[in-house]
C-alpha cells in the first residue's frame, strides 16, 4: 500500500492496462505530448507512441465517436474529455451511439469505451468551466456512470471500466487530482456497481459521491464531536445504476437521510436517491429526507459568490441538526 496522488492513481491504471493489452489506447486533447492537463497520462506518449496515445483535435463529438467506432472492432479506448463542460458537445455520440448500440443491434455490437472527464467547481473557472454533469449522464440507459472519491477508487474503477464490455463514464473532479490516498500495490479492480460505507453511524445517513463524500465525512466528525450525533456516510461511487440495496440498507438502519451533492438540486442525484428511499423504505423513516445541493445558478466568477453557490460541511451539519430538531 502506498500513498499516492489521485492523478498518479489514474495514470497507473492507464499504464497497467496499456502494458497488458495492445488494443487499449488513450485519446483526448493534450493527453500525449503534454501528458494531460492534470498529468493523468504523463509519460505514456513516450512509452506507447502516438498511435496509442492520441492527441486529438478539439472536436469532442468527433473524437468520442471515433473512439466508439474503434471499440466496435475490439479496440479499448480510454477517452479523456478535458473538462466535463466540453462533454455536452459529445453527448450525441455518448448517448445515441455508445449507450444504445448494444440494445438496438439486439446484442450484436457493443461499445466498450471508457470516457473520463473532470467536472465540478474548482477555483473561479467561471460559468462555462464549472459544470457538474453527472445528472445528465445517469439518465442515459445503457451507460454506466461511476465517480471516484479517492485515489484507490480512481485506480480500481478505471481498471474495471477498461475491461467491462459496457460503455462507462467516469466523472472525476478538477479539485481532486492533487488529493493523496492509499492505493494497494497489487492490481485491484473496483466494482462498477454498489456503494461503500465510508463511516459507520446510527443516527442519520449522509449520502455523498465524489467530492461531497469529503464534506459528509467532515460534517460527521463535527456532528460527533460537537453534537453527539453519529452519522453514517455512504459513498455512492456508482451513480448509474444506483445501489438500491445499499441505499435501503443504510436508510432503514439510521431512519434518516441527507443527500449531499455538488450539483444543482433539480433532476439530480439527490432527487433520485430520495425517490429510491421512498420506494424502498418509506415507512422506516423518522424524518423526511432532505437534499443539500448547489444553488440553481450558473457558477459565478466572484470567489465569494462561487463559494456561496456550492454546499460545504457546515451546511450538511445544519441540515442534520434541523432534521433532528436540535
Amino acid at each position, binding site marked *: 500500500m502506498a500513498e499516492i496522488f489521485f492523478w498518479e492513481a489514474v495514470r497507473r491504471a492507464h499504464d497497467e492496462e496499456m502494458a497488458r493489452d495492445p*488494443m487499449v*489506447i488513450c485519446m483526448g486533447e493534450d493527453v500525449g505530448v503534454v501528458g494531460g492537463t492534470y498529468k493523468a497520462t504523463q509519460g505514456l506518449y513516450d512509452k506507447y507512441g502516438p*498511435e496509442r496515445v492520441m492527441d*486529438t*483535435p478539439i*472536436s469532442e*463529438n*468527433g*473524437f*468520442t*465517436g*471515433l*473512439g*466508439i*467506432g*474503434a*471499440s*466496435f*472492432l*475490439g*479496440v479499448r479506448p480510454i477517452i479523456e474529455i478535458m473538462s466535463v463542460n466540453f462533454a455536452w458537445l459529445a453527448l*450525441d*455520440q455518448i448517448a*445515441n*451511439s455508445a449507450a444504445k*448500440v*448494444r*440494445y*438496438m*443491434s*439486439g*446484442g*450484436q*455490437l*457493443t461499445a466498450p469505451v471508457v470516457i473520463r472527464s473532470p467536472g465540478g467547481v474548482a477555483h473561479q473557472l467561471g460559468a462555462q468551466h464549472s459544470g457538474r454533469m453527472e445528472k445528465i449522464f445517469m439518465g442515459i*440507459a*445503457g451507460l*454506466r456512470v461511476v465517480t471516484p472519491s479517492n485515489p484507490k477508487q480512481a485506480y480500481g474503477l478505471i481498471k*474495471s*471500466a477498461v*475491461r*467491462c*464490455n*459496457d460503455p462507462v463514464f467516469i466523472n472525476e473532479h478538477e479539485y481532486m487530482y492533487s488529493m493523496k490516498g492509499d492505493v494497494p500495490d497489487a*492490481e*485491484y*479492480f*473496483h*466494482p*462498477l*456497481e*454498489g456503494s461503500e460505507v465510508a463511516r459507520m453511524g446510527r443516527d442519520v445517513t449522509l449520502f455523498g459521491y465524489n467530492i461531497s463524500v469529503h464534506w459528509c465525512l467532515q460534517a460527521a466528525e463535527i456532528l460527533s464531536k460537537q453534537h453527539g450525533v453519529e452519522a453514517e456516510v455512504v459513498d455512492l461511487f456508482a451513480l448509474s445504476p444506483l445501489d438500491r440495496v445499499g441505499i435501503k440498507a443504510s436508510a432503514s438502519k439510521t431512519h434518516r437521510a441527507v443527500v449531499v451533492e455538488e450539483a444543482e438540486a433539480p433532476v439530480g442525484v439527490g432527487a433520485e436517491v430520495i425517490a429510491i428511499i421512498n420506494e424502498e423504505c418509506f415507512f422506516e423513516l423518522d424524518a423526511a429526507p432532505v437534499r443539500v445541493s448547489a444553488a440553481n445558478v450558473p457558477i459565478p466568477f466572484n470567489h465569494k459568490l462561487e463559494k456561496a453557490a456550492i454546499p460545504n460541511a457546515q451546511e450538511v451539519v445544519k441540515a442534520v441538526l434541523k432534521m433532528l430538531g436540535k
Partner: protein
Amino acid sequence: MNAADKKRLLREMLFARRFEERCYEAYMERKVGGFLHLYPGQEACCFGVMEAARPGHDYVITGYRDHVHAIKCGSDPKAVMAELYAKETGCSKGRGGSMHIFDVKHRFMGGYALVGGPFPLAVGMAKAIKMKGGDEIAICFLGDAANNQGTFHESLNMAALWKLPVLFVCENNLYGIGTRIDRSTAVTEQYKRVCGYDIPASQVDGQDIEVVYNEAKKAVDHVRSGKGPYFLELMTYRFRGHSMSDSNKYRSKDEEETWGKRDPLYILKSRLIAAKELSEAEYQKLDKEIIEQIEKDIIPFAESSPEPKVDELTKYVFGENDPYVRGGAR
C-alpha cells in the same frame, strides 16, 4: 464488369426495388410501424460501390435508409423484413427497426438515425483496422444533407490527419428531408467541400451503375492501398419521399419526370437489351421470380415469426454477468 456481372447486378437492383416497394405496402397495411425510409432511385450507388469493394469483408455503416446496404453486404432479406415487422427473428431482434438494421456477421455495422452520426464511427472503425493491420476498409454511406453536420468536418479532418482507411460515399439526392440542397447548403457540389482537408474527391453520375463502379474501383483501391481516405460523391435522386410521413410537395413534376427517365434499373436494362445480352421476356421472368420470392418466402417468414418476449424488455441494455461489474474479478 462483364455481361454476367451486369445481369447479376440488374437482378440484385431489381430485387432491392421490389423489396422496398413491398416494405411500402406492408407499411400501408400497418404491419410495419415507425419510420420508413426507402431506397428506390438510388440503387446504383450502393450496388456500384459495393461491387467495387468486398461485401462481408469491408465494414459498412450508414444512416437510416439502410435496408438495401445490409442486403448487399450479405444480410438475409428475410431477417431484414422481419426486423421491419419488429420480430425476434429480425436481424436486430426486433429492438432496432427499419432505421437500425445491424448484421455484424456480414460486417454491416448498422443503420443510425442521427444525421451525420456515423461519420466519426466510420473513422473509428478505420482506426481499428489500421491498428490491427488488416486489409479491410471502412465505408460510410450518407446523404448530402449529413455534410452540414459538424461531425462531417470533424471526421474528415481526423481521417485525413491520421491517414485512415475510410471511404466516404455521399449519395447526393439533392434534398435534406424536404429542403432542396441549394436552399440549405452554400456549396452544393459536395466533393468541393472536401478540398479543405486535402482528401481526394470526385463526383460522378450515381444513376449509371457502370459509372459508379468504375469510379468506386479507383476510390476503393486508393483507400485499400493505405493512401488514406477518399470522398466519392454520387449524383442521384430518390423516387419516393424522404420517409413515409413525407407529403412530397416540395419537388416539381418536371423534376421528378426528368429524374424518372434516369432510373438506374432502366439504364442498365436498356443497355443490356441493346447489347442483346437480355430480352424483355427474360427481364419479366426475372421480375416475376423476385416477386414470388418476396411473397412466398420473405413476407410469410416475417409475418409468422414471433415477437420479442416482454419479459426480455431489459435484455441488451448491458452485458450479462460481466465480472468487472460486481468486482468479482481478482
